[in-house]
């Protein structure tokens, strides 16, 4: 299943957030979206997931999701969004219960996704007992449990310290390598983008518009730290964004 954005524009009241964004998210690929603060990345992702409706333009899903897919468009959030009163297993079972999956069927799915995210030993732990990296792994396991057609990730690693980030990127790459998934990956971090993205969409400052789309051909599993081609791309991206990032940073917020 692909996702297609057609001329999406949006404004909150008279506050224009994004302008005329058209984009294709092809099956089995990871599309990274980068851009300065406040350019509308999270808003765009909410449009794709159907949590909000754009003022203009359309978000289309092309083709039908596979039959065993419980929740075609599934998010992974920056703040993990785990229910603190449920154990790791309980948090995963939460998203199965509404589909009537309980008991042994649920246990099978839960055991499977916990094994894939190396969390088997933590099934009974409460979120408060876990480090940030572990929590995000639980969120990933929960997303895998519903067999999503497209994963929507909003800066999934930016609440983590950089060492944990490194570890989780490895985990994501190995998950993708085993069974490729489709994903829209929003991030601020260009290192993440060049590490995980098959294509990288660069947005301009608010109102967000597409400035450039960079395609990277190196297979994910082969991308190494210090790879000159990736370094070149990352430097290129930073050149594109640097001034805008500085301008976005220096803006006074009217709260």
């Amino acid at each position: 299943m692909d996702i297609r954005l057609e001329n999406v524009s949006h404004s909150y009241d008279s506050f224009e957030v994004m302008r005329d964004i058209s984009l294709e998210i092809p099956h089995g690929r990871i599309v990274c979206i980068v851009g300065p603060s406040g350019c509308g990345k999270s808003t765009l992702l909410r449009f794709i997931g159907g949590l909000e409706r754009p003022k203009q333009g359309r978000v289309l899903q092309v083709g039908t999701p596979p039959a065993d897919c419980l929740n075609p468009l599934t998010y992974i959030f920056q703040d993990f969004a785990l229910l603190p009163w449920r154990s790791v297993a309980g948090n995963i079972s939460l998203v199965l219960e509404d589909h009537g999956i309980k008991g042994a069927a649920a246990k099978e799915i839960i055991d499977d996704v916990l094994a894939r995210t190396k969390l088997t030993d933590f099934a009974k732990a409460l979120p408060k007992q876990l480090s940030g990296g572990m929590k995000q792994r639980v969120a990933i396991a929960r997303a895998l449990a519903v067999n999503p057609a497209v994963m929507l990730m909003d800066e999934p690693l930016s609440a983590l310290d950089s060492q944990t980030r490194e570890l989780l990127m490895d985990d994501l790459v190995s998950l993708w390598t085993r069974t490729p998934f489709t994903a829209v990956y929003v991030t601020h971090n260009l290192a993440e983008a060049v590490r995980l993205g098959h294509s990288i969409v660069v947005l301009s400052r608010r109102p967000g518009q597409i400035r450039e789309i960079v395609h990277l051909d190196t297979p994910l599993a082969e991308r190494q730290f210090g790879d000159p081609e990736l370094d070149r791309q990352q430097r290129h991206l930073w050149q594109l964004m640097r001034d805008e990032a500085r301008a976005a940073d220096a803006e006074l917020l009217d709260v």
Partner: protein
Amino acid sequence: MSDTTLSHPPAAARTEARTVSFRGGGFAPERKRWVGGVVFVLLIAIAEWGTRAGWISALTLPKPSDVLQTLIDLHQSGLLYKHLSPSLSRLVVGAALGASFGIGVGVLIGLFSYVRAGLVPLVAAIFPIPKIALLPLFVIWFGIDEGSKYALIAFGTFTPTVVATYGAVDNVDRSLIRMGQSFGLSWLSIVRKIVLPGAMPGILSGLRISLAIAIILLVAAEMLGAEYGIGAYILEAGALYDLERLFAGVLILSVLGVVVSTVIGLVERHLLDWRS
């Protein structure tokens, strides 16, 4: 499009494109200002209709229009102000005493472990004591004049203010205090410039509750030898089973409560506009 529907499905299955379904929304309160007004008007209209038509007995509720008339009379005869001004001064003096002592003690509890250990259990034990039970004592301790009224209101506002204040001091961001220490600020500077302003939001929201309690206690306070005062007026109306005056008095207190809460809201907006 519509004429080919039947033959289409297999082909469409491969390239079918449909907008993603919306599933957000809700769970965010929207403002609907007029509804509140409508509910009030409706309730009053029903009461008026019922009392006029007779299916609400005169014993159960007064006619709203009579209550209004009572209020107008109170205003025109000037009695309203004769009752309001002693009540307001009791409220102001009593609440000011109680709140300032409460804030003082609360800050001390927040800052000093020994004070905390000594006073917190005491305050916890005093909190659930109903103030009306102590009325006879208050007469002996503070006399039947203004003294006992101030004392009762002060006593009633004191305990919730203490609890709110030391909670607020406890909740001051420790990282700001550590910052102050790391720049070598003196203890007094840290208290004055970091702890107190940081505790302000908590203290103000505690004050909101304390003042509501002060208004409620006005009635209890004016049980004690008060000739004039909204509380005395209500008590007299209750004793005479004069529902119009009872409701008029309660209405005045209710308005007083709303006014006090609005004032605190304004103070908060003014003093705490640094909150995001």
